[in-house]
């Protein structure tokens, strides 16, 4: 499957949700440490979220044969996870734009802003969940595992979290230690998941077997290349954590983000490439 528009759409939407939620979590962290609010970095990351979400939405239209009928895509929320995904992605995108505008109007009600933020965050999480369910078709064994939703959420929080750390490079070392450790755990979990998925799928019939062949034989160098990139990212994250010098090497976080972004693009490409259906 050469679904470049879907690779871009799913990755950008997931990263956008991740940046938004990670930004919110950074707010919590600052408050819990009684530090100054993270709102200045929020003002910088929110436009990033909006740009990512809007570009993603436009890209998704490129995937349609008849984009003119696009509004009909919300008709079947009753049974179609694709309909639901479109609903929640739209709610999330609208919510971020409204929230951003509210942060610019500093005289507005802080409680109302908070409510909008929470609704937007929940919409974002439901968007990623719906996206995963779209792919969990009974007739496509390689996609119909718990790996699909887990990987989508990991992509979101990992890349989103790294973007927020890049924008927070002037924060104190102790502020970013815990987030960095959480991200390290996520990368390690991603590595385990990437390998475990092949075990989840093996022995599940002819279609699953062909999918595995596509992953491990036809695209072996991409499959293992992704592992290498993630392992490199682990090394680059462990070192500054141990040396307590995360903020001394801002280039390190950007490099980690680049490595993991490439790893995620490879992963998403292989996700679509490994599509094999039962039957004909």
């Amino acid at each position, binding site marked *: 499957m050469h679904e470049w528009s879907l690779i871009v759409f799913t990755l950008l939407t997931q990263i956008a949700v991740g940046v938004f939620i990670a930004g919110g979590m950074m707010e919590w962290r600052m408050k819990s440490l009684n530090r100054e609010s993270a709102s200045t970095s929020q003002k910088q990351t929110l436009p990033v979220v909006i740009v990512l979400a809007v570009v993603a939405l436009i890209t998704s239209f490129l995937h349609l044969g008849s984009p003119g009928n696009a509004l009909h895509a919300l*008709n079947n929320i009753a049974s179609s996870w694709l309909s639901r995904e479109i609903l929640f992605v739209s709610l999330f995108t609208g919510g971020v734009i409204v929230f951003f505008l509210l942060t610019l109007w500093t005289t507005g009600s802080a409680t109302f802003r908070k409510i909008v933020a929470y609704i937007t965050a929940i919409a974002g999480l439901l968007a990623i969940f719906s996206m995963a369910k779209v792919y969990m078709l009974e007739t496509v064994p390689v996609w119909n595992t718990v790996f699909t939703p887990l990987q989508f959420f990991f992509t979101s929080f990992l890349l989103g979290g790294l973007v927020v750390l890049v924008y927070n490079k002037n924060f104190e070392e102790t502020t970013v230690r815990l987030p960095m450790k959480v991200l390290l755990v996520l990368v390690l979990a991603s590595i385990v998941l990437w390998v475990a998925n092949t075990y989840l799928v093996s022995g599940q019939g002819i279609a699953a077997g062909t999918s595995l062949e596509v992953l491990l034989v036809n695209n072996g160098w991409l499959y293992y290349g992704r592992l290498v990139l993630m392992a490199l990212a682990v090394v680059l994250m462990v070192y500054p954590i141990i040396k307590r010098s995360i903020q001394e090497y801002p280039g390190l976080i950007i490099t980690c983000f680049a490595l993991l972004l490439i790893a995620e693009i490879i992963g998403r490409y292989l996700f679509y490439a490994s599509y094999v259906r039962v039957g*004909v």
Partner: protein
Amino acid sequence: MKKQYAFYIDTSRCSGCKTCQVACKDKNNLDIGVLWRRVYEVSRGSWTKQNGVWKNNIKAYNVSLSCNHCEKPVCVEVCPTGAMKKNKNGIVTIDEKKCIGCNYCAWACPYGAPQYDEAKGIMTKCDFCEDYLEEGKNPSCVDSCPMRVIDFGDLKELKKKYGGAEQLYPLPEAHHTKPAILIKPHKDAVDSGDSLAQIVNEEEV
């Protein structure tokens, strides 16, 4: 009583001539690459030399397949626009005014029924020649088959008349979508999950 139109395919007599495939393309003016009915040539086994004598364990047969207008149609379930619907005759139809050509139905259908029409930008598939049915005529594929392999009618009546199977290789297991189809298995027919059988005319389907 709810009607469920269904096809009956006698694979024990299908010669793989593909007249049904061509008749369907002709009647519906289908573009190159759009196949509402497909004929799968199945092959399994090989020749071995034993004590100077060549022996074979070859199994071969053909299956003509269009849309099975399933009783649990996954295409209807997943279609975001509701363009894909099952009507009162049990026939699954596509509303061209709503379809956005996203291909989700094609990803899901284990029978390869929904086909993307590049020129129209939407999904298309077998409609059981419903316009012919309304005139009291038979579907194009049924009438065109020189071996009289394809029959059709209400699923319950077909079951009484013929009995038969709901699955065989290369079709998937029937529990996924509950296809409204009856198949008379060829003597060489193998199970859906058979890992040694192959479709040997991929370029034609």
